[in-house]
């Protein structure tokens, strides 16, 4: 498919493809090469991508519930990343508080190391119950050459608790994705394995790559526990610093978000020999498979079947009812990365088909998983920008758009039903019970009477925008 809006941007063609017969990739440049991904954004194309800091502070580090979340940099990075992503926990210190060294011009000229050290000490004094200080580096403090690592070491000696320094400057990498990697690596290096607990961990697991958005973890945690397994750490939703320190003891890692967190599973496998399995914890088929695969590892197959049968029976009537209402709808999913391929099957279980799939920062493995699952004729777009999204919504007219808050109002202005897949409209959406929430939100979005009102009653914009000012009509 050629985008009209890309007539002057030929470089975008290699990021756009359609799945052809036999699973082939028909790329926008006319070749059969695989879709280009994880490369620098075209400047000025109105990308939806964020920065490395956002991936590290916002996604991986931010959910740790008892760490002081300290940004080393100017005020904005801390203000904008504060409190909007609902990575919930059973306490809310991490949601309520943000800390920043608040670099000003003088600090930029003379360096910010002293201020960083003082900030760590002060923050710790104000909140002595915090278990660690997470320090996130930003563009400006990196450029002026502050040695944050060294300051973190000094501070650690003074306050007597871990000071974890993330080198996640916004300009590194091409998207949030590198920030996830840095977050994984830093937590692994500085925290994991720093405590050796006693006890039997032979039936314990870590949930890797779930951030407990609107309490997602609550929808599947009890299922693993019902198998007789103990969860040590959730990397990183509703997790404490103490959990992270001992997560190397787990017998198995269960990796959910395979873009943002496979890194730590790999590192644990290499250093501690901890095996991991990849799972999808959304939708009936995938959630069941996750439980079966986990159970198989521990030899608990029979119990898994009991749990699955019980849980599926609970939700099946609801899913059947929703499927009747949602049957045949065509969906445009645009998410950060893996959620796109996590949800294709879930949507099918609800009778819907993905007609366009796009990711902000997906890598080749994400797109391979997408291509494997989508039907022929489905459009795939890497790092779509605002005009492309608008063109998909107006030309392909999907019945439903699943994306994030920034794109919500564009969809609404174009009259396209929308569900927030990033932070959820209601949620949680994971597990068996969460799927009912997801289905209910989709149903609400599709069948709200507002769309009929819009389609029947909307009028074109009055032509001259000046007239709206009103003062033209006034006699002076």
């Amino acid at each position: 498919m050629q985008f009209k809006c890309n007539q002057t941007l030929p470089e975008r063609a290699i990021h756009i493809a359609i799945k052809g017969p036999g699973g082939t990739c028909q790329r926008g440049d006319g070749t059969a090469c695989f879709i280009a991904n994880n490369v620098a954004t075209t400047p000025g194309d109105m990308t939806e991508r964020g920065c490395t800091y956002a991936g590290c502070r916002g996604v991986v580090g931010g959910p740790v519930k008892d760490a002081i979340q300290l940004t080393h940099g100017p005020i904005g990075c801390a203000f904008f990343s504060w409190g909007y992503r609902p990575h919930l926990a059973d306490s809310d210190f991490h949601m309520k508080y943000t800390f920043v060294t608040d670099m000003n011009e003088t600090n930029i000229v003379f360096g910010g190391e002293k201020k960083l050290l003082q900030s760590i000490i002060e923050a710790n004094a104000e909140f002595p119950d915090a278990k660690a200080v997470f320090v996130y580096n930003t563009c400006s403090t990196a450029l002026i050459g502050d040695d944050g690592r060294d300051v973190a070491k000094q501070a650690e000696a003074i306050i007597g608790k871990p000071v974890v320094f993330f080198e996640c400057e916004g300009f590194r990498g091409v998207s949030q994705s590198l920030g996830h990697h840095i977050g994984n690596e830093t937590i692994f290096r500085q925290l994991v394995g720093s405590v050796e607990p006693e006890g039997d961990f032979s039936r314990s697991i870590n949930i890797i790559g779930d951030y407990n958005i609107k309490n997602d973890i609550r929808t599947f945690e009890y299922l693993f526990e019902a198998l007789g397994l103990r969860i040590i750490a959730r990397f990183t939703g509703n997790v404490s610093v103490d959990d992270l320190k001992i997560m190397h003891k787990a017998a198995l890692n269960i990796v959910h978000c395979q873009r943002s967190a496979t890194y730590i599973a790999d590192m644990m496998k290499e250093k501690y020999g901890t095996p991991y399995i990849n799972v999808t914890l959304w939708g009936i088929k995938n959630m069941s498979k996750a439980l079966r695969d986990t159970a198989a590892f521990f030899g608990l197959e029979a119990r898994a079947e009991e749990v699955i049968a019980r849980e599926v029976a609970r939700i099946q009537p609801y899913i059947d009812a929703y499927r009747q209402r949602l049957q045949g709808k065509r969906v445009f999913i645009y998410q950060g990365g893996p959620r796109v391929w996590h949800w294709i099957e879930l949507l099918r279980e609800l009778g819907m088909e993905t007609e366009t799939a796009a990711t902000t920062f997906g890598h080749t493995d994400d797109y391979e998983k997408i291509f494997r699952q989508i039907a022929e004729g489905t459009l795939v777009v890497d790092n779509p920008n605002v005009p492309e999204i608008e063109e998909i919504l107006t030309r392909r007219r999907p019945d439903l758009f699943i994306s994030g808050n920034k794109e919500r109002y564009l969809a609404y202005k174009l009259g396209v039903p929308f569900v927030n897949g990033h932070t959820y409209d209601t949620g949680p959406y994971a597990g068996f019970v969460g799927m009912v929430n997801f289905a209910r939100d989709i149903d609400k979005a599709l069948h709200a009477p507002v769309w009929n009102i819009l389609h029947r009653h909307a009028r074109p914009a009055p032509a001259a925008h000046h007239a709206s000012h009103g003062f033209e009509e006034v006699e002076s």
Partner: protein
Amino acid sequence: MTSRLTIQERAVAINPTRACAPIGAMLANYGIHGAITINHGSQGCATYPRHQMARHFREPVEVATTSLTEKTTVYGGKQNLLAALKNIWERFHPTMIMVCSTCLSETIGDDIPAIIDEFLDKHPEVTIPILSVKTPSYIGNHTTGFDNFLKELALNLPDRRKKKGETNGKINIIPGWVNPGDIRELKHMLREMGLHGLWITDYSETLDGGYYQPRPHFPRGGTTVEELRSSSKSLATIALQRHVGGEAARIYERRYNVPAYVLTMPIGLRNTDAFVNTLVEITDHSIPEALEVERARLLDALVDTHMYTTGLRVALYGDPDLLEGLVGLIAEMGMTPAYILTAADNRPWGERMVELTEELGVESEIILKGDLHELHKRIKQKPVDLLIGHSKGKFIAEAEKIPLVRVGFPVEDRFGYHRRSIVGYNGAIALVDEITNTIFERRATTIVSNTLVETGVEGPTDIPITLRNGAACHP
């Protein structure tokens, strides 16, 4: 009554009240019809503010970024900015482009005006204005970016050719950092006065738009570039916030001989009177019946509510100009602005606020370089009845069970506050109602400082009222 000025000394900021400069320039640029912003920096510097604005305005917010990466921090961001300018021009054909900088592009030393000149040399077909605004995050706050935008606009856009005595018959109004609802209220006032305003700038519709089928190419509304070009021929410039637009108004006076009037944000009776009187002074138009009626209605609202509001202690936080205006209405409602906290490091403003509060007969602590954690600590020491400020104060409100009246930016946890107005007589009436109703929602026992409690409490009111924490309060 003695007020005092304190400056917060902590190095670490905990729960800041302020954002950073680029978002201010982006917001101001949204008030120009068909203008597009390019943010020269990391992708996050565009995406974070977009997300924040979408949460406040509930509108699509589109800002381009030059997507600087590691390589560009070594070799400079020139190629990225040239490419972004070309792509934005070819793809959107905007009426204007505004390029705002970031920590990153400022620290690596990119000369943005020179890069823009090079672009214009290479592309003679591009005749639209391209404005460069300096907005590193480490200087000032979000209002600084807005103010810098206005200064650049005043220096670069207006037509310098002006015959003696030539006028467009309009008045430049620089509302400052306000909401779409505020701009609409100000427009209403000018219309009632029979005056033509030239709005610098006007996002009353671009960021609070309607549903149209089909969707217009650019959001409806906004001041046009042509109007802005003629702003040098206006009768006068009125800036309604001293720190956001005050300097731009003075540029109009110095450069184009357009007299400048820099006023306090028109919140409450006296501040709104000052605005209306200025319009009268500039134009000789008399105050119309409609505005007189609104003014009388505000007086009526103040008298109807005073038994519920008099004596209450209030904490205010936010941007200096908003606080300066708000304090007027708070005093008119008989309330004490016990804490007035801003993140700005602005001693002259602080000193003026000390004088102003004393003049208004209230006792306040004015806190500079403050953050919400500091405010929380003060409130724990000596409680207040009400918080007034943006959404981020909700954590104090929840912890201390004190109601929060939401004003300012951002209001992201409630719906439609961008549509409301707190300026002018009507805005003040709405705010008086909201404050009073918020107090009604409270139980009598939680009012800590009032000598007059709301209905439902029997007996004399001069006896000590038990506080939540069990201590007694002697009003």
